[in-house]
């Protein structure tokens, strides 16, 4: 420690000087200024003059407010806490939390300082208790427990309430301290009249219930006592809150509170107390219809209130109405309040509907949220809608056809994030798997969604998902539109056999638009696969169709863009062509693939060296007779394979015919039934509607392989 000279004192900077200088210093000089200030403080804090040390302490506060680290001053501050000057002690206690945390080594030194302060006057005691409440850790609280307990019997209510508050922290940090000490505190609180002290006591009970809930019987009588006679709203709010915990632990306590809750609900005008009461009643008093109804009326006022905070609290209460029927009563008000709500309240409303939407209100909910989505909450709305649709294997959906053709295209257009695009894709796959008949509408679905994608040129904007393909190590990025585009192309590809020629022609015309191939370059191989399937389907059904040359040109365009077309795809394509096209037609196609096919992985040859002495260009078989034999057996094998495939095709066409006959019979029977019922029904349905049933069993319908779905997902 040293004494500053008179000269030094003249140039001593006060807090005001430092603040003024800091605000006028440019950003570039800030570092220099801060370093200089820290050096000054380190000097001044060791001075003998208390005023100088106090100014240094205030400057430390300022440095901390500016975001600087002042933990280097831990020892100095602990030193100041033991000072004889009250102002310095107080300043150090107020700054303690800035330099001390629960892992600080300096806390050991603080124990004796605090014990000394507890023996001083009530002002020192009060400020010390406040400091202890902020920095207490396990060791400190164990060492000071007896002193704090003594202070709970102090004559001053200021000391008593702070001591009880600190005690709650001590009990939370080390619950072993509760036994033997809590009963004493409860006895004192039973005689207590000061509201602040009682409120701190109730907070202490809440803290104890968190760590030792089995001790709840100790609190029942005192809580009941206070609820029956208290008039302070602040204390009543705390009492109602702790009563909720006690009711959950001891349900019989609920019966005792009915009379008091009814009285309070009728008498109070305080919104905060009303909220606590209706929250408690909605959660625990469902069996008491009169009380529940009056709480419901007040709840409606909260939902319609102008204050957004009260509306938010009203929504919070609704989460405790466990049945959808109960929520339906408030549905209109909730949807109205959604229009005026802020972002967080909207999230709360969406969560409510996620839990309580059912078949009855499904359409209303979907239409409302699609209509009222805005930029800020759009992604959350779409996420919630997809959740509502897919919940419990589409349990809320009674009309899958309407969902697919009306709601899903609108949802697709509103999607603007990758997460939602992936959720949308999974929802679509699951819906089409669980409802087999819906695949017939896949072309209509694609037209509705993809037409907007073709006209909007901003398809490349927005965040992207980076993908590295496993076998080829190709890297590409997808944005949300492209993820949906790929999934739709895949769905159409799966449904090609079910679609009519006209639908397939429309798809080809759509894909011919140049900007599709330019915008969705990462999806070219998927478009390629789709074109192959359409091409083969058209050749089977109508080999002379005019659109065939267009498809061939389109495939060629794509091949020119794709540098590394998969060999598997080419071989599949050729195999199908051999079965369906004549030799002349095949000859014309030869030009499409004149170039040598590249290997699957260009890097593969680097890692796998041919064995030494092996000449890859030399033929394996030299004997000509042997070669002829192998050729003959191969040709026999090919003929047999063709025979088997022809038989399989005949069987398939027979089974398809049978299915169609069955469907026609069903339709005829329905028509007959409807004609009989016409006399009795006023409403007549002229066209027999297809009823789509959602398969909610764990096993998928026949013909669908779980491995296929997994493969598609893995490729993505």
């Amino acid at each position: 420690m040293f004494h500053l000279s008179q000269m030094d004192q003249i140039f001593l900077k006060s807090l005001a000087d430092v603040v003024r200088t800091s605000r006028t210093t440019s950003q570039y000089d800030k570092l220099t200024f801060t370093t200089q200030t820290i050096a000054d403080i380190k000097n001044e804090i060791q001075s003998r003059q208390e005023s100088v040390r106090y100014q240094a302490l205030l400057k430390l506060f300022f440095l901390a407010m500016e975001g600087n680290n002042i933990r280097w001053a831990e020892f100095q501050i602990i030193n100041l806490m033991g000072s004889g000057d009250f102002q310095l002690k107080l300043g150090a206690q107020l700054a303690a939390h800035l330099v001390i945390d629960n892992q600080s080594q300096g806390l050991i030194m603080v124990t004796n300082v605090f014990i000394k302060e507890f023996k001083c006057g009530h002002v020192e005691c009060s400020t010390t208790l406040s400091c202890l409440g902020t920095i207490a850790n396990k060791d400190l609280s164990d060492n000071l427990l007896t002193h704090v307990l003594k202070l709970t019997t102090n004559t001053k209510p200021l000391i008593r309430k702070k001591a009880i508050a600190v005690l709650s922290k001590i009990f939370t940090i080390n619950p072993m301290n509760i036994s033997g000490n809590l009963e004493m505190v409860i006895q004192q609180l039973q005689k207590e009249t000061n509201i602040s002290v009682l409120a701190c006591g109730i907070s202490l009970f809440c803290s104890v219930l968190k760590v030792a809930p089995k001790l709840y019987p100790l609190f029942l009588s005192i809580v009941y006592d206070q609820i029956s006679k208290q008039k302070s709203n602040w204390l009543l709010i705390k009492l109602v809150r702790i009563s909720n915990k006690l009711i959950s632990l001891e349900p019989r306590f609920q019966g005792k509170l009915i009379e008091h809750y009814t009285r309070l609900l009728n008498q109070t005008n305080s919104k905060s107390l009303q909220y606590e009461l209706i929250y408690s009643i909605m959660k625990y008093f469902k069996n008491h219809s009169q009380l529940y109804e009056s709480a419901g009326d007040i709840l409606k006022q909260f939902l319609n209130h102008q204050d957004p905070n009260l509306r938010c609290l009203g929504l919070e209460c609704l989460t405790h109405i466990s049945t959808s029927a109960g929520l339906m009563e408030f549905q209109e008000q909730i949807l109205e309040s959604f229009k005026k709500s802020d972002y967080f309240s909207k999230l709360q409303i969406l969560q409510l509907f996620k839990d309580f939407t059912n078949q009855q209100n499904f359409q209303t909910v979907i239409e409302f949220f699609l209509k009222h989505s805005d930029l800020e909450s759009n992604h959350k709305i779409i996420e919630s809608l997809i959740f509502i649709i897919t919940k419990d294997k589409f349990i809320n959906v009674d009309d899958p056809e309407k969902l697919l053709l009306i709601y899903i295209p609108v949802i697709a257009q509103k999607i603007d994030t990758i997460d939602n695009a992936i959720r949308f894709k999974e929802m679509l796959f699951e819906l089409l798997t669980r409802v087999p008949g819906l695949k017939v509408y896949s072309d209509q679905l694609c037209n509705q969604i993809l037409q907007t994608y073709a006209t909007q040129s901003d398809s490349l904007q927005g965040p992207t998902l980076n993908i590295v393909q496993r076998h080829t190590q190709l890297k590409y990025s997808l944005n949300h539109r492209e993820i949906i585009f790929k999934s739709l192309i895949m769905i159409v590809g799966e449904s090609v056999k079910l679609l009519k020629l006209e639908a397939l022609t429309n798809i080809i015309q759509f894909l011919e638009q140049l900007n599709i191939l330019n915008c969705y370059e990462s999806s070219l191989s998927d478009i390629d696969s789709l074109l192959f399937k359409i091409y083969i389907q058209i050749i089977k059904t109508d080999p002379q169709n005019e659109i065939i040359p267009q498809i061939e040109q389109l495939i060629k365009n794509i091949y020119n863009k794709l540098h590394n077309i998969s060999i598997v795809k080419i071989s599949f394509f050729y195999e199908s062509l051999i079965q369906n096209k004549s030799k002349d037609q095949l000859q014309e196609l030869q030009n499409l693939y004149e170039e040598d096919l590249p290997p699957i992985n260009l890097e593969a040859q680097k890692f796998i060296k041919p064995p030494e002495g092996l000449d890859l260009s030399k033929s394996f078989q030299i004997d000509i007779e042997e070669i002829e034999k192998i050729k003959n057996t191969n040709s026999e094998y090919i003929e047999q394979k063709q025979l088997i495939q022809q038989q399989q095709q005949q069987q398939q066409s027979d089974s398809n015919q049978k299915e169609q006959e069955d469907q026609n019979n069903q339709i005829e029977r329905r028509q007959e039934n409807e004609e009989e019922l016409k006399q009795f029904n006023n409403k007549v349905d002229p066209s027999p509607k297809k009823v789509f049933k959602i398969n909610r069993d764990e096993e998928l319908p026949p013909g669908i392989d779980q491995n296929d779905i997994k493969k598609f997902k893995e490729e993505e």
Partner: protein
Amino acid sequence: MIKVFLIVSSSGKIRIRRFYDEVEFARQQQIEQKLIVLTSKLSPNSCNFFKDLDGIYDKKCKIVMRFFGTLYFIAVIDEDESELGVLDLIQNIVDLMDKIFDNACELDVLYHPDKMNALIDEIIVAGIVVETNIMDIQEALKQQETQIKNK
């Protein structure tokens, strides 16, 4: 119980910080930064409290935020604390600041950090609100000043 209490300037600097649970300094900084980012979502027509869905402190807690002048008052509370009660508490703190500093502003917090911290410590101790009566709090602060003068 109040877990965290912050007073943040509109420029993102923390003027008053209190962590009433045992939290290490590194985690304190993370929590502070995330809470400061949340202040941008507050608007005059929005709700002043919301659930801590992102787990900034704890998913069971709620965040209460209120804006006065150039200062954001932020409190992270658990299920034992009333949201409207904390909003009232923040109003009380601002009223007290007005009484102590005569039309308080951010500069008063900068120039009198000791008074500001003493004020907070008279209202909240160990995360529990110990006093809401403005007269009683002012009386306690006066007693401290008298003690300082009597040295």
